[in-house]
């Protein structure tokens, strides 16, 4: 881990990103662009599950927030249990990626953003009935108007980036 940070081409860039995003690309390897299709394959499976388990349904999200249905709690709860067992096993057996790279984890640092941003996100989630993943699946079902929601969410991200320094963290 120590040499990893020093090896990195732009350590400042890495540090900033690791604080800011949950989606930091931990990999140091460079591959041809078409290697990325393996992630598209995983995405396709994810998209199918979204639809088939009605996770992208506005009604399911409303039922979740009104405590009228166990469905979404079951989905997220099971996913976390399976995910946690997987992460535990990967750490315990020091499983490597298919390219022989060590799998790394970054601890999240707490800041007020997780509270304020979290509350704001929750308000939006109940309005649109979709978090970012399902939005893309909804577009796939032919609900093209959801592209407006995606664009607006991108605008929200941009506005956050623009006024980041003025916001409490």
């Amino acid at each position, binding site marked *: 881990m120590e040499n990893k940070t020093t090896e990195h081409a732009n350590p400042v860039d890495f540090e900033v990103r690791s604080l800011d995003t949950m989606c930091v690309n931990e990999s140091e390897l460079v591959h041809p662009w078409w290697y990325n299709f393996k992630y598209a394959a995983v995405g396709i499976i994810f998209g199918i599950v*979204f639809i088939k388990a009605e996770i992208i349904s506005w009604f399911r999200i409303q039922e979740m927030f009104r405590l009228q249905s166990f469905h979404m709690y079951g989905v997220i709860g099971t996913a976390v249990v399976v995910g946690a067992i997987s992460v535990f096993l990967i750490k315990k057996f020091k499983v490597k*990626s298919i390219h022989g790279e060590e799998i790394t984890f970054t601890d999240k640092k707490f800041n007020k953003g997780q509270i304020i941003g979290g509350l704001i996100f929750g308000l939006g989630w109940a309005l649109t009935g979709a978090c970012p993943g399902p939005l893309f699946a909804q577009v796939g079902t032919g609900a093209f108007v959801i592209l407006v929601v995606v664009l607006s969410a991108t605008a929200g991200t941009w506005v956050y980036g623009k006024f980041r320094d003025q916001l409490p963290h």
Partner: protein
Amino acid sequence: METITQPWPWYTAGIIIGLIVPALLILGNKHFGISANLRHACAACLPSNIPFFSYDWKKESWNFFFVGGILVGGIISTLYLGSDEAVIVHPDLAKELATYGINDFSGMVPAQLFSFESLFTVRGLVMMVGGGFLVGFGARYAGGCTSGHAIMGLSDLQWPSLVATICFMIGGFVMANFILPFILHL
């Protein structure tokens, strides 16, 4: 085939989604997350010298492929895996929605709320443009969305992710139960 075309139970969905976490890690040391895509899109299209968007987004392009896959998955299941039956809605919710004139449960995205026509109504504008903005702004402010915090973060036992997840739920409860009724009345 019957089992595939019927709506899938929560445990099937939960197990598959949970397995996406190790799948991405093992395929290339990638951490499950969706909302960062919106940031990468900003970095790619409109960085405007904002430090938050000044990084090598190309290195994160795997994430675009991942959401591209989600979109394709949506197309595949809509076209081939038969999911156009009406959504079964809890009777209490159906009763409440009927008071706002929402009675069409034929799609998972209710056409009476989310359509190009309703985009030009106050209600539609607030729900689509306003809701989308809150999702994008909030997710980045919180440092992740449901996938990055609630699933990846909790799987890695990160307590800040638990804080974020609890706040997502509080925000959602407040909106659905106390604010949304007024918006739906618009």
